[in-house]
């Protein structure tokens, strides 16, 4: 069974204080690892897809990296508008073409204080 564990559960940062969020996963045949951002009462917003160990993706102040066991979302010099819950999800190769295998972690709630 696929498992995704995110840490920490909650993180409070001062504006400009860089940090990283962790997503550890156990999956049979990783097809993709996804990062989403979710604001309260809204649907998740897609950030990145990573497919293989060593891959990195960047978008503004965010950088996602992937190893064989975990992914990190690095936040450089965050701003208050980066406050949100960040969700990690993995898609395994059990059933080809099915999003049934998209397993979400519980998320990290990030608060950036001005």
């Amino acid at each position, binding site marked *: 069974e696929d498992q995704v564990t995110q840490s920490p559960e909650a993180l409070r940062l001062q504006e400009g204080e860089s940090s990283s969020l962790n997503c550890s996963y156990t999956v049979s045949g990783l097809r993709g690892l996804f990062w989403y951002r979710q604001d309260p*009462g809204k*649907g*998740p917003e897609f950030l990145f897809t990573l497919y293989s160990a060593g891959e990195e993706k960047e978008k503004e102040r965010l950088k996602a990296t992937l190893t064989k066991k975990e992914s990190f979302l690095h936040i450089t010099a965050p701003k208050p508008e980066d406050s949100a819950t960040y969700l990690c999800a993995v898609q395994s190769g059990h059933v080809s*073409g099915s999003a*049934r295998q998209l397993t979400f972690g519980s998320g990290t709630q990030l608060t950036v204080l001005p």
Partner: protein
Amino acid sequence: DTEVTQTPKHLVMGMTNKKSLKCEQHMGHRAMYWYKQKAKKPPELMFVYSYEKLSINESVPSRFSPECPNSSLLNLHLHALQPEDSALYLCASSPRGLEKLFFGSGTQLSVL
């Protein structure tokens, strides 16, 4: 148009009511999904439609009835819900089920 549109945004219903949630996308995606999300929890998959046919039903109670009238529309019909069904209901779509999901903003449902 890269949006998934859900209506209504908020819904309050009694346990004897019948209501429907609607979802629309015009990105040409052939896979559409319903997720349920409780506060501070990750989204839970309910149903998957692939090429307008129900391909996955994650053992959802029959008081939830999905419908896919065409490739752009997805409905979720609600009947005789329980208070524990109160949650954020999210619709999503993807090109063929292999790629990233595009989520709508959700319908916040309260069952009294």
